[in-house]
C-alpha cells in the first residue's frame, strides 16, 4: 500500500497550502467565537486540521495506482455511505431540513464531501479504462451519465444540490479533458440544456425566479436569502483595504448566518480587508495553477490516471472556491458552499487536505526516476 518515491513534496506548494490553512484556521476561529461565544468550534476545527494533516501525510505515502486499483470499491462504499444518511436517527442526521450527515456521536461525517474526491478517483480510473469507449460516440457518455447520475440522485435526495452540481461539473470537465469528442459533448450538452429549458417553461414565473437575484436591485430586495449577501457586502465594505483588525469584525455576531462556514470570506474581508482577500485569492490561485501544472506534467509522462486525478482535484477545488467567493462577493445568490481549507467543517477540511496531499504525491511521482515511474499510472 505504501511506497517511497525518494522525493520530497514541493516545498513552495506545501508552504502555500500550510499558509492558507493557518490563515483559515485563525479566521474561522474568530468567526465561530464571535457567532457562538464558544471555543468548541475552534477546538473541533483544530482537531479536524490535525486529523486532516495526518491523513494527508499518509496519503503522501500512497502511490496513485492504489487508488486506481481500488477506485470501484471506494465508489461503492461512498455510495453506501450516501445512502446511510437516510437511515433514521441516531445514524442519519438532519440539520436545517437537509439530511447530509452520518452521526458518529463525537462528530458528524458528511459523505458528500468524500464523494467529491472519490468521484474524481473513480472517474479518472473509468476514463482511463474506457478510453476507447469514450471516443465511440455516446457509449462512454451514457456510462458516464449513469455514474454521475447515481451519485447525483442520492445527493439531490438529501438534498445537497451544491454537492451534486460540483460533482457533476467536475466529472464533465474530466470527461472533456479525457478526450471526448467535442461534437458529442456539444450534442449531449445541448440536449441536457434543452430538456432543462423545456422543464423551465412548464413552471410559471420560472425565468423571473431564476434571475431575480441579478435583475432586482440588491438593496431593495427584502428576501431573507439576499440579506446574507447584503450583509457580506457590508462586512467587506467595513473592512476596506486593511480591515478592521483580527477579531474586530461585527458582522459575524448576528448579521451573517454562517460566518464560520459559507460566509467566511466576508469575515476575511471585514477583518483583514482587501489585502486579506487578495492574499487568499492569490495563494489559492498559486496552489491551483501549480496543481494544473502537475496534472500537465503527469500527462506529459503519459501517466493519464494521475493527470486526470490531479486535474479533477484542481477543477473541483477551483469550482468550490469560485462559487463560494462569487457568493460572498454578491455575484451569485447564496447557496451552501464551503471555502476549501478555510471554512469550518470536519469532512470538507479532511478531504481537501487529502486531495492536496494526493496532488503533492502526483508531483513527487512526476519527479522520481524513470525506472520507478514505469509502474506509476
Amino acid at each position, binding site marked *: 500500500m505504501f511506497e517511497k518515491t525518494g522525493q520530497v513534496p514541493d516545498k513552495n506548494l506545501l508552504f502555500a497550502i500550510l499558509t492558507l490553512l493557518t490563515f483559515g484556521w485563525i479566521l474561522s476561529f474568530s468567526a465561530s467565537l464571535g457567532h457562538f461565544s464558544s471555543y468548541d468550534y475552534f477546538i473541533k476545527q483544530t482537531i479536524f486540521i490535525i486529523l486532516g494533516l495526518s491523513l494527508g501525510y499518509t496519503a503522501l505515502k500512497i502511490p496513485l495506482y492504489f487508488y486506481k486499483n481500488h477506485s470501484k470499491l471506494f465508489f461503492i462504499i461512498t455510495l453506501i455511505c450516501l445512502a446511510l444518511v437516510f437511515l433514521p436517527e441516531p445514524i442519519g442526521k438532519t440539520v436545517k431540513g437537509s439530511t447530509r450527515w452520518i452521526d458518529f456521536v463525537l462528530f458528524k461525517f458528511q459523505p458528500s464531501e468524500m464523494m467529491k474526491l472519490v468521484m474524481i478517483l473513480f472517474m479518472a480510473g473509468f476514463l482511463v479504462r474506457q478510453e476507447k469507449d469514450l471516443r465511440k460516440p455516446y457509449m462512454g457518455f451514457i456510462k458516464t451519465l449513469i455514474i454521475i447520475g447515481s451519485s447525483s440522485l442520492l445527493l439531490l435526495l438529501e438534498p445537497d444540490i451544491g454537492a451534486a452540481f460540483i460533482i457533476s461539473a467536475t466529472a464533465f470537465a474530466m470527461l472533456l*479533458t479525457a478526450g471526448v469528442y467535442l461534437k458529442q459533448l456539444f450534442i449531449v450538452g445541448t440536449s441536457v440544456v434543452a430538456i432543462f429549458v423545456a422543464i423551465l417553461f412548464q413552471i410559471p414565473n420560472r425565468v423571473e*425566479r431564476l434571475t431575480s437575484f441579478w435583475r432586482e436591485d440588491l438593496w431593495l430586495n427584502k428576501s431573507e436569502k439576499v440579506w446574507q449577501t447584503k450583509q457580506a457586502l457590508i462586512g467587506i*465594505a467595513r473592512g476596506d483595504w486593511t480591515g478592521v483588525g483580527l477579531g474586530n469584525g461585527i458582522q459575524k455576531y448576528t448579521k451573517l448566518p454562517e460566518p464560520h462556514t459559507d460566509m467566511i470570506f466576508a469575515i476575511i474581508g471585514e477583518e483583514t480587508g482587501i489585502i486579506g482577500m487578495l492574499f487568499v485569492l492569490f495563494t489559492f490561485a498559486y496552489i491551483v495553477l501549480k496543481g494544473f501544472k502537475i*496534472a500537465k506534467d503527469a*500527462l506529459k509522462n503519459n501517466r493519464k490516471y494521475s493527470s486526470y486525478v490531479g486535474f479533477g482535484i484542481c477543477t473541483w477545488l477551483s469550482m468550490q472556491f469560485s462559487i463560494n467567493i462569487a457568493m460572498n*462577493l454578491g455575484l451569485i445568490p447564496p447557496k451552501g458552499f464551503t471555502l476549501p481549507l478555510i471554512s469550518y467543517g470536519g469532512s470538507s477540511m479532511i478531504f481537501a487536505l487529502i486531495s492536496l496531499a494526493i496532488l503533492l504525491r502526483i508531483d513527487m511521482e512526476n519527479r522520481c526516476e524513470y525506472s520507478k515511474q514505469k509502474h506509476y499510472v
Partner: protein
Amino acid sequence: MSGKISTISKTLALGRVQNYWRRQGAIKYFFVFLFSVFSYQTTSISQSSIAGLSIQDRAYHQAASLERTIAQRGDILDRNSHILASNLLLKRLNLDPTLIQVEFIPKLAHILDMKVQTLSKLLASKRKIGSRYLIIKKNIMLTDPIIEQLKQLKLMRILVCANKNIANKLDFMAHILNTLNLQKTKTTHTLVKQCKRARIAGVALQQDTKRYYPKAASLAPLLGRVNANKKGGSGIEGEFENSLAGRDGQSLINFKAHTNKSYFNSKTITQRQQGQNIMLTIDADIQYHAYEAIKKSVQKHEADSGSAIVLAPNGEVLAMVNYPADNPNDNSTYNAEHYRNRVLSDKVEPGSTMKPFTMLLALDKNQITATEDEFIDVSKRIGHIKPDGKYKQMTIKKILQKSHNLGTVNVSERLESKAMYNTWNKLGFGHQLGLIPSIENSGSLRHFSSWASSDKRTLSFGYGPMEANLAQLARAYLVFANEGAIPPLKLVKNISTYEGTTQVFSKQSIAKIAHLLDAVVSNQGSGYQAQIKGYNVAGKTGTAEIVVNGSYNKKGTKRTFFAGFVPVKKPKYIMAVRLDHPKKCYTSWNPNLANKCEGSNSAAMVFKEAMGHILSNDTSIKLSMKN
C-alpha cells in the same frame, strides 16, 4: 517495422495527449479569468455606493446603534445636607401579551392582586393590536413583595399547552423545485396541540426612577417638581434644570441582539454628565416650622393664601414657604396655583411694615431724634391723611407701636423725595433679587421725578409708587442684622453673588429703631401677638388694603403682614409673613370673639408660632430674662 509503427502510434498518442492538455489549459484559464474577476470585485465593493449612500457609510450606520446612557438627576439638599429631592430606584412591570401563556394568568393575577378576568381582558385587548407592552404596575419599590413573588413565579414550571402549526412535508419534486427557486409550493400546516412543562414568558421587571420629595408639601412651591418627562417644571427644579438633569451620554455601539451585550468599539459622541446636586441655603427644620405655622394660620383665619420667608443675617434664605401647597409625590393632581411661589412671584404693597425705614431715614438725616421727649404732631391733616382724633401728639416709639399713618407722614414731610427714592432704591425695591429669576417679580419703584406730593406720603407707610415681593421686604429688614448694611439674598449654597453689601443706614440709627421695634412687640404695641416668651423680639405689623377693580377695597379684603427679627441685639433670624385676605380673626383676650383682621391678629401670630419652634431648637440664643 513494428518498432516504426509503435513510434508512430506513440507520436500519435502524444499528439492526442497534447490536445488534452490544451483542454486542461482551457479549463485552467477559465478559472484564471474567474479569479481575476474576483480580484477586481474585492477591490471595488468598498468603493461602491447604493442610492447615493456609500456602502461604507451604510455599513457604519448599520453596525452601530445610538445608545443613550441616562444621566441621574442631581439631588436637592438643604444647608445641612438633608435631602429635599432625590431619585427613587423603582421597578415597573411589563407584560408582553404576545408571549404570556394563558395557564400563568391566574398565578400572575394573584400576585398582582387583580381579578383573573380583568387581567385576561387587558392582555387580550393588547394582543389584538399586536402590542408587546402592557405596563401593568409602575413604581414598584425594591422591597415590594411582588418582586420576590415574581422571582418565584419565573422559576416555576407548569404544563403549558399551545396550538402549533406544524409544516407538512413536501413531496420530493416540489422540494427540488422549491430549492431551485423555480416553483413555490406553499407548505401546508396542520394545527397540533402541544403540551409541555414550561416557564412563564414575557414578564419583565424594568428599571424605573421616580423623583421623590421627602419633605412633601412644605417645599413644593419652592422646589417645583419634575413633569412626566422627568424635566423640571417650575421652582428650583425648573430653574436649575440644566445642572440638575446633567447630560445624557450618547454613544454609537454595536448590539448583539440576542444577548443584549454590546460589542467593543463603542464610539462616544457625548460624554454622559451626571446631574449635579444643588445645595440650598434652606434649613429643612426651619422650613417645616414656618410651613406648619403658615398652614395653621391660613386654615384658622380662612385666608386665601399665606407665605413667609426666613432669612439669616448674611442674606441666606432659611425658609421660603407658601400655602396652599400640594404634595409633589402625588402625581394624580396638579394645580398650578398650589405650586406658585408667592414669596417671589407676587408684587404687593407692603403697607406699614415699611414705616421703620421712613424713621431710619429721618434719623440719618437728623430730622428726628426718636427719643421719648420728642413729639410729633398728629392733630393736623396732611394731604388726604386725616387725624384720627385719638392722639394729638406722639413719640416715634408710639407711632411705630400704634402703626400711626399720620405720624409717619408727618416725619416724611421732613424728607426729600430724592433721598427717599435713593434709600428705597438701595434697599433693593424694584430690583431683581436673582434667586429664581424665571418666576421672580422684581416689583417696582417709580422714579421720584414722577411722584405727586401724595406719593411721597403714601410711600412712607408702604403704599404708592412702590410694590415689592415678600422676599424684598424681608431683605430690607436685614439692615437691622447688619448694622445698617444690606447683603444680597442667597438661595443656593456655594454660589457667590456679584452684588456686594450696601450700607444704607447708620449703625446708631439702626440701634435706636431696633429698640423701638422691640417695643412694638410688647403688650403696648401692635405686635403683641408676636411676643415669644424668653426672647426679645422686634418687628412691625402691616395691614394693606388690596386694590380690587382699580380702587382700594375698604371692605375687608386685605393683606396682613408681619416683618420681624429675633433677638433684637445681633438678630439671628429675620422673618416676613404675609397672609392674603384672612377672613376670620379673633381678639387676643378671647379666642372666640371675632375681630377685624389686621397684621397684629393674624400675621404676627404666624411669626410667633414659627419662631417659637425655631428658637426652641436653637440653643445658641440666650434666653432673655426680660419677660
